[in-house]
């Protein structure tokens, strides 16, 4: 989370110029040609290179988007959990997205860093800017914003036709699900379990919540807490008909979790064997793959509309 005060300082012409001159003298990072001034999705004015060639992605979602735009040749560093696609795993690591390694970042001589709001710590961003490295921040907080992010990054990274194609693809997928779900009047009660111990679920204003609604379900969790903790008894009271588990659980652990839930036959979801495991990367990460998560959720909530077998949900 950024505090707007610190970043608006960059808008002041004097300070901006100071930073530019210091960075150019100290860090001659060899930017190709010139720079342009852009406004990033959260409203910051950033000096980015015309042709960024040494980009550091500060979140796994950004890495996925860059690969989806086929601009991975511009990437020189990613964060630790950038595990998709497979090619990303061989890129140099710069720490995790909450604990970035400044030295590694500097050593890679980036000409641009792409950060996510509500993810990367503000002080790291400030430090990078102080050291003369431009940081472009995105805020993919819901599906619409993710598509906007794809558009913005596509333009930034000169992805050309890939941008329009990817945006259109994503919009079509969302539209398809929307139409499909509209055919059913049923809105089952859904509980998404993201933590095993303690039992953590998702509240409104989270990505998963939006997915549940789009997928034609009703999130039983309301209230202002984004990631509330529950006891099993409390979940009983919520009586979900569908139980989705999205922790980074592998098959074996999922079998154990399923067994644990078997005691609670009072839960409609357990009684009717409506327990599903979905890869958390698909429901948690604001990238194009989120739409696969959407499809998986739809298949779980409305098996009559969509078949889960055809999808890759784990």
């Amino acid at each position: 989370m950024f505090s707007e005060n610190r970043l608006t300082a960059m808008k002041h012409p004097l300070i901006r110029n100071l930073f530019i001159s210091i960075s150019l003298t100290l860090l001659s990072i060899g930017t190709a040609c010139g720079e342009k001034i852009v406004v990033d999705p959260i409203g910051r004015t950033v000096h980015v290179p015309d042709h960024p060639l040494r980009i550091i992605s500060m979140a796994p979602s950004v890495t996925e988007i860059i690969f989806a735009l086929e601009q991975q040749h511009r990437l020189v560093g990613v964060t630790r959990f950038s595990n998709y696609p497979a090619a990303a795993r061989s890129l140099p690591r710069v720490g995790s997205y909450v604990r970035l390694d400044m030295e590694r970042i500097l050593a890679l001589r980036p000409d641009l860093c792409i950060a996510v709001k509500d993810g990367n710590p503000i002080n790291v961003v400030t430090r990078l800017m102080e050291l003369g490295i431009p940081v472009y921040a995105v805020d993919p907080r819901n599906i619409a914003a993710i598509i906007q992010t794809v558009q913005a990054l596509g333009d930034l990274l000169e992805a050309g036709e890939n941008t329009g194609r990817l945006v259109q693809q994503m919009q079509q997928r969302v539209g398809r699900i929307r139409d499909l779900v509209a055919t059913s009047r049923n809105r089952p009660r859904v509980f998404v379990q993201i933590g095993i111990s303690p039992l953590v679920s998702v509240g409104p204003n989270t990505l998963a919540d939006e997915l549940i609604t789009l997928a034609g379900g009703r999130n039983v969790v309301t209230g202002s807490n984004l990631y509330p903790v529950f006891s099993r008894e409390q979940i009983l009271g919520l009586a979900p008909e569908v139980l989705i588990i999205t922790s980074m659980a592998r098959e074996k652990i999922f079998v154990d979790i399923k067994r644990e839930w078997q005691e609670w036959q009072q839960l409609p979801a357990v009684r009717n064997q409506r327990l599903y495991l979905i890869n958390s990367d698909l429901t948690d990460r604001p990238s194009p793959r989120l739409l696969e998560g959407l499809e998986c959720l739809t298949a779980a909530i409305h098996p009559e509309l969509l078949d889960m077998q055809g999808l890759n949900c784990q």
Partner: protein
Amino acid sequence: MNIIKRISIISIILTIVLLLTMVLGISVGSSDQNLLHMVKALIYPEQDPVLSAIVLKLRFPRVLLAVIAGAVLSLGGVVFQSILRNPLAEPYILGISGGAAIGAILGIIMGLARFPGVGFTAFAGSILSLILILYLSSGQTIFQKDRLLLSGVMVNAFCSAVIMFLVSITRDARLHNIIFWLMGDFSTINALQAGLLLVMVIPCFIIIFMLSHTLNLLSMGKETAKSSGVRTRLIILVQLLTTSFMVSLVVGYCGLLGFVGLVVPHLMRIRLGPDHRVLVPACILGGGAYMVLCDILARTLPEQGEMPTGVVTALIGAPLFIYFLKRSNR
């Protein structure tokens, strides 16, 4: 030997040790670790501007912060050990750590920057808990050491509970920030902030050094000190406030680094004797060097990433502490 000569010789030796550890500190990092490369980069920055930037803008402020933190905590330990007449006291013992932690966590939750925002809230928290402790332990004889210690322990315990509560209700990325802070964290600092910190603690060092002889007199007992002409209440108050100020500044910025304020004064006392006029400069210089070494270990031991420095100081300090304890029982 003349006391002035003694202070000078020991200070010179320890300064050399400190400088050597600092050089080691800035030549170690997650990228290039070659000392020669580093020296070249410093002399000819144009040849390798990236390494020179890494060394000057990342490593050097961090090493400087480690020196300041080590010096402040060790000095705080010496002062509290004298005032409380307990060779095993720590600067956190009067609830400074608990209060500072609560203040810092609240600052992080409010979204303040580490420096000066969180540093300030931490300082405010520590002063509040210090006042609470002084109030709890006051009576006809203020500064009665056993009651001070007891109140300090109680307040610290209460603060721990509050801290756990605050941690449990924080659910987002700020939680990471809090936890790293709690474990001791030197990674977020720039040269300006380190310099400011230095400017603020140097007067504290000077004040405490000027009062080092009164620390000698105080270590023989408050009444004995008073009958030697020491205005004990005033002096103790000044020392408590000065120490609390600098310790809570450091805590506010770097988090909780345990055992340093226990181990370094004790090591120094064993080697150099109990005269505070020697111990004060020795702890400043030696404490700084010790912390730089701990930080180096924190950065180099793990295969990937770094450990929080507070973990290293605890891992080294706790066994040393046990060793001192057994030694003093003999």
